[in-house]
């Protein structure tokens, strides 16, 4: 049981500001775990923003936020 506990991968939480995102998809390109995708609804500017599609796969590495040119992403890990 104890061993299982220490082997648990950290889980992450990604928050994408839908109004700041311009849908450039550089976050989707860099994410090693295929967590992100593009929304099928456009934001008020007319861009299709990135969204979290598979939240359970995220380990909170923060790569998406690192490469986001719009600084639209915050990442938390726990």
């Amino acid at each position, binding site marked *: 049981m104890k061993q299982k506990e220490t082997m648990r991968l950290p889980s*992450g*939480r990604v928050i994408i500001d839908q*109004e*700041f995102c*311009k*849908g*450039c*998809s*550089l976050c989707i*390109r*860099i994410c090693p775990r295929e967590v992100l995708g593009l929304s099928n609804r456009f934001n008020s*500017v007319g*861009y299709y923003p990135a969204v979290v599609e598979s939240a359970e796969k995220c380990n*909170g*590495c*923060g*790569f998406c*936020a*690192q*490469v*986001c*040119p*719009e*600084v639209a*992403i*915050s*990442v*938390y*890990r*726990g």
Partner: protein
Amino acid sequence: MAVVFERPKTLIKKPFTYCPGCHHGLAQRIIAEVIDELGIENKTIGVGPVGCSVYIYQFLDTDFVMGAHGRAPAIATGIKRTQPDKIVFSYQGDGDIAAIGTAEILHAANRGELISSFFINNAVFGMTGGQMAPTTILKQKTTTSPKGREPKSHGFPLQLCEVLSACQGSAYLSRVALTNPKLINQAKRSIKKALLTQIEGRGFSLVEILSPCPTNWGMSPQEAVDWLEKEMIPYYPLGEIAVKEGILHA
């Protein structure tokens, strides 16, 4: 939950006005992070240029002066010499720093002026519609080199860091790119070293940041990042080009 990434304090919370996939915003975020880490937000003065780079004054929460095309290093010189306790940087595009402003940057570096320049090299005149710049690489198509740049009539791409490395006053010169987290961390270290070079009074510092301009390159943001890695970095190798220890004017 622990914070892995949040917006830096010095970056004003509003959406960037840059094209999707442009790295101007990314570069400005990293500069803001370094300003936060050094705790110099209340004594930093930026000098903006002409070009898409100019919008930096809307996004960084420091004082700003806007210069005429290419003249930012001269303005930064004046500010630094009259207010030596301030941290002064210029933020310039390749059309600004390596074409119309070549004289200003060369002499600021050669004098060992205690300023830092952040140079966004996107290999085109971005704001005016993607004309060829001195930094446009060979075979690259632009609106004024529609068949691709060829050296016989257009000359060779200018490697500004290498040119400035011949100046005795250049204390720190580095070239970086922002296409993946590892390079972003290296870029951040370089930007910090440049500002520390100034803070320690060691001489002139400049960081060249290779940056995509997907709009004028006619590419998607993802294609532009791939093209930068495959075509631009081989001609503009990344790394520190000059690192001089000690105080140049001592």
